[in-house]
């Protein structure tokens, strides 16, 4: 046993492979949050008056709110006055082509194995790069524009498409929804805006790579995706962050709106710095993601592969308002070393014959704690609603924890709600069996974990599935017992 846990320890002890900092000059605001900081940000972004008013209202709400303490995670209290709320790369104008993009940035992408060129030419992905807070480069705009698709930085959308932003921002996640959504609404720096017009099928995967790059800078992304009637869009958000000592707060808000017969597929591969083996450093990821199936027969599907962050607090949810609408949540959450994750989803059934499906795969290793928290709520009016939930936990070693908190609130007798849960362990028997077939322990863990997560990985666009598979293996290096 001692020997085995030594092997497990070794596998768990590998280092974060994406730890590096890009040295791009930055423009910082002093620490702390006041109404003036909100005004400064709004002014920097050259926002209209209504946007500033909206931010200030959110700021007022935030002042009276308290941090949530119900998640199953522990961390030192955050001093919100110690955070820098604005940082932007010093750039005069947006680059017209890749040649004009900062070579440092391109080098960063090369280190991540995500060359923009290759992405563009080989995979047909349009990449909207968000480096820290300001969007540096948006590609494929013209091609998308021909179809009437808007895919741009949020700050640009506020200026260019105020009627859309005004109508939808905060419509799914109200400013006062929770402490972090209020904070985000007050100080959000940038993010992505997507609008798919009626009947248009977006021909490429829309993708944004986020990186958190400035020391002590809170990241407050704001993403809004609207799929008009009968349209389709697949959006991928992928993240890696440089290694650093201070904890960094990330409080993003993502809102999705699917009108009648529209479909939004939102995939996330999250690999922010998880902190070192002792739990020092790492990103605090407090995210509010929610979509609304506004119209009949619309569909929203969340897929997430979460391997990073010191603390993850995230519940991508769907409000199933339209009749016959569908909500899906597919998740793989990996925690290793001292990581803590409290993640899951909420499915709110309002429309008739609405359906939801939840597949959650938690993987815990090292000394980490991994919790699934999910709510399936069927309102009285939601005749014929159906839900299927499957929550699996996989434990690697015997010092980690897996927890499941499923909540079911069903107010309609015709609803069908199913919940299945399993817990399994990669124990010494399985590892020895693999070893005896010539497969070393690390390769065995990768093989088993990828098999375990396959149902979720299959939901990702092909090229990202491969990336995610590698990421799972990397995250669990050094973790077996």
């Amino acid at each position: 046993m001692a020997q085995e846990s030594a092997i497990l320890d070794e596998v768990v002890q590998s280092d974060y492979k994406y730890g590096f900092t890009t040295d791009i000059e930055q423009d910082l605001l002093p620490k702390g949050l006041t109404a003036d900081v909100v005004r400064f940000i709004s002014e920097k972004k050259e926002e209209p008056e209504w946007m500033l008013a909206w931010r200030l209202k959110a700021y007022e709400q935030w002042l009276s709110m308290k941090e949530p303490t119900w998640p199953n995670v522990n961390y030192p209290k955050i001093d919100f006055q110690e955070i820098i709320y604005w940082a932007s790369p010093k750039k005069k104008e947006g680059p017209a082509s890749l040649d004009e993009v900062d070579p440092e940035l391109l080098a960063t992408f090369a280190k991540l194995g995500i060359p923009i060129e290759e992405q563009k030419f080989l995979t047909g992905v349009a990449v909207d790069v968000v480096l820290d807070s300001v969007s540096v480069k948006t590609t494929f705009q013209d091609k998308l524009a021909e179809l009437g698709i808007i895919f741009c930085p949020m700050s640009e959308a506020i200026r260019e498409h105020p009627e859309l932003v005004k109508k939808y921002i905060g419509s799914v996640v109200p400013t006062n929804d929770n402490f972090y959504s209020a904070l985000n609404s007050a100080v959000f720096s940038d993010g992505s805006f997507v609008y798919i017009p009626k009947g248009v099928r977006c021909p490429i995967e829309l993708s944004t790579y986020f990186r958190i790059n400035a020391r002590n800078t809170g990241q407050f992304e704001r993403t809004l995706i609207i799929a008009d009637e009968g349209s389709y869009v697949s959006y991928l958000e992928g993240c890696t962050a440089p290694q650093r000592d201070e904890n960094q707060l990330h409080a993003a808000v993502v809102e999705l709106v699917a009108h009648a017969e529209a479909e939004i597929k939102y995939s996330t591969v999250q690999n922010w710095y998880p902190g070192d083996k002792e739990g020092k450093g790492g990103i605090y990821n407090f995210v509010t993601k929610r979509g609304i199936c506004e119209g009949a027969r619309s569909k929203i599907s969340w897929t997430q592969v979460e391997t990073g962050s010191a603390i993850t607090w995230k519940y991508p949810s769907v409000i199933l308002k339209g009749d016959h609408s569908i909500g899906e949540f597919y998740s793989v959450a990996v925690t290793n070393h001292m990581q803590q994750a409290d993640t899951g989803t909420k499915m709110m059934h309002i429309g008739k014959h609405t359906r939801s499906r939840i597949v959650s795969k938690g993987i815990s290793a090292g000394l980490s704690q991994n919790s699934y928290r999910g709510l399936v709520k069927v309102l009285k009016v939601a005749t014929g609603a159906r839900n299927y939930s499957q929550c699996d936990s996989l434990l690697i070693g015997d010092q980690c924890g897996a927890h499941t908190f499923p909540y079911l609130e069903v107010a309609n007798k015709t609803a069908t709600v199913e919940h299945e849960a399993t817990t399994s362990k990669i124990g010494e028997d399985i590892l020895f069996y693999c070893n005896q077939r010539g497969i070393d322990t690390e390769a065995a863990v990768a093989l088993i974990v990828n098999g375990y997560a396959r149902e979720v990985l299959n939901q990702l666009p092909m090229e990202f599935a491969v990336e995610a598979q590698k990421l799972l293996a990397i995250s669990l290096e050094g973790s077996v017992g």
Partner: protein
Amino acid sequence: MTPILQITDLTAGIEEREILKGITLTVNPGEVHAIMGPNGSGKSTLASVLAGRADYTVSGGTVSFMGKDLLEMAPEERAREGMFLAFQYPVEIPGVSTANFLKTSVNELRKHRGQEPLAPAAFLSLMRERMKLVEMDQSFLSRSLNDGFSGGEKKRNEIFQMAMLEPVLAVLDETDSGLDIDALRIVAGGVNALRSSTTATIVITHYQRLLDYIVPDVVHVLWNGRIVRSGGKELALELEKRGYDWIKAESAVEA
């Protein structure tokens, strides 16, 4: 001729308890050895120690595998050098298909030998061919490894894996336990088809029955952590007739 396996005065146990109390055994190329003995005599311990299971501690003696020090090697290195253990209780690995598992395994062994990974098409046709040896249906390839397999299917899968990995030394740990007569015949047929002049097999079993199908060159009786008697295949028949008590009695006198 270098023996495939040379065990000398091997002592081993779990925690403080010594189970193998001095095993000496030589297995030459082309040979099939049967190791028999009553429950608790140390048969499965011997198999586990040879494969390198971490729970067991070797306290003395040497084991040479193809002239190399086996005890110095990690379990996966032993496998890559050509040691195969057919498990008494094969594990289930949900989510990992039999085909994917074997592909990983076969390619690890090939890498060790400095060979390129097998191309998918070549690998698939090799699997199809080798499955026939144990009359396994192709549908097993896409099913999770041993997940929901019956006892007999799991054992056949072990022999199928052995056929894919082409080991120098195969150790079958009570592969016959829990098999009906048809499955026994199929499993034995697979083992026989893989016999060659350059490889060897150690068959660990309770019963003579399996040895009707896999005819051994040498039969050893293990009792109380020692090989107390070795002989030809007729020894197995004698054991079948007389049981183990006479051997226990004799070895008690000798001790």
